């Protein structure tokens, strides 16, 4: 069963349609969210002056994308604060080296030579 679905006429598109109470509410919510964003993300759009769907759409897009960007930026900044982890990795590397050193010392004691242990390390 294949059902044909008629497309709306070209005239259905009207970005100059007066903004509905739903879109006004959506903008007001976004405006509250915008106030919490860092100022560099602010839109400079005065929502009380928005009268059409097209104007509302521009504001909605700006703030929605700003929210995503601000969260991404924060996540990126969080990743850059990884030195703690880096330090942990470094510590682990040092620990490995110490363990290796102990092993080498033990081997040295057994074989009686420092050279063989350092050679072994270089090979790694």
């Amino acid at each position: 069963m294949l059902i044909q679905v008629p497309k709306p006429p070209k005239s259905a598109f009207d970005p100059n349609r007066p903004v509905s109470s739903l879109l006004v509410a959506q903008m007001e919510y976004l405006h509250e969210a915008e106030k919490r964003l860092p100022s560099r993300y602010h839109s400079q759009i005065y929502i009380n002056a928005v009268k059409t769907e097209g104007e509302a759409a521009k504001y909605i897009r700006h703030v929605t994308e700003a929210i995503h960007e601000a969260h991404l930026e924060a996540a990126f900044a969080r990743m850059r604060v990884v030195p703690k982890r880096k330090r942990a990795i470094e510590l682990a590397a040092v620990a490995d080296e110490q363990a290796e050193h102990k092993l080498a010392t033990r081997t040295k004691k057994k074989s009686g030579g420092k050279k063989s242990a350092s050679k072994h390390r270089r090979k790694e």
Partner: protein
Amino acid sequence: MPPGLEQLQHIVVLMMENRSFDHMLGSLKAVNPQIDGVTPDLSNPDTNGNAVQAQPLAEFQAQLQPDPDHHFPAVDLQIFGGSTDPNRVANMQGFVKSYFNQQKDVAHSQKIMYYFAQNQLPVLTTLALQFAVFNRWFASIPGPTICNRAFAHYGTSFGRVDMNLIYLNEPFKSIYDRLIGATPKHTSKLYYYDTTSSTMEITNLLQNQPELFGTFPQFLDDCAKGNLTDYSFIEPNYNDHEGDSGEEVANDQHPDHNVQAGELFIAQVYNAIKSSPLWPNTALLIVYDEHGGIYDHVVPPACKPDQFTASANDTGTGMPFAFDRLGVRVPAILVSPWIPAGTVVNRVFDHASIPATITKFFLGDYSPRSPRETNADVFIEPNSGAVDPARNLLSLDVMRTDCPDFDV
């Protein structure tokens, strides 16, 4: 376990805007008498006292201007016909009166009674006839969009009956938080149409958890790749705008947006799921957030009160509201290849049934949930334990291969 439930892994909800059941699906009474649609005896009085019949004269656009009032006091008038008596009885006789209040034009106010003929809505009516249509799915509140949509996300509107929803430190988690916070973890996504349309769930979700959101093109891609999350919620395009690929016509069907654009959108959602490798494992619920002030004949039933009460000041009617009555009936259709064609469901549902169903299906017992959600019926039975065949809508033993296709 019935194979349809056993195979079910993904539930998708598409919530459209502001149309009543009779307005969109009322014509189907003539096709299937089990569907509780429009009959010739249905009418509302106009302000001259004349009976205005429900008629199949609805148009796709430019008929319902201004947007019919659907805020709490107007819906109260629509449901109770203007009576404020403490012992009043709901009669659905105030729709024309309510619309008259906006323009004081008797002829124009009668248009609120118009409904679509079946052939005008080939997508919605075909899906209703081919899968499961709900005779008793109501908006959660006799009020506007935001508080009704909140019920779909949280199972409550936290006491609000209007467009102002701030839920700080509220006790009930969104369905998305419940899923992603569960052990084992489940997945969930809200798809808005694009960033220019965005979401109506800004205060708690977009603002704090933007990672939950995707776009409609991402939904199409996720369907094609078989990457759907366990639970997906889709929002339509709420405004006309220039998109990256040209003109984007609002497809939410909110008056005065074009209804055909919404038909096309519903078909796109359905086609994406049907052509996905996940079709055998997916159920799609298409539902409208509220009636948008447009006529419906079924009296919304009383329900278990929520733990919140809206004050007389907040309702604007001079009376408080304990969330003990549902809103006006809306279209709702459940789609799955495991549902027999022609299924008609007579149990009572509202949008609190959405988190109730998703929670029970994926997580089982869960608390805390709002009293309204706890008492809401589920439209998909949990896939654990014994299943009551009388309640299971995905009841076929063998998956259908005769489901419709839409040429978009």
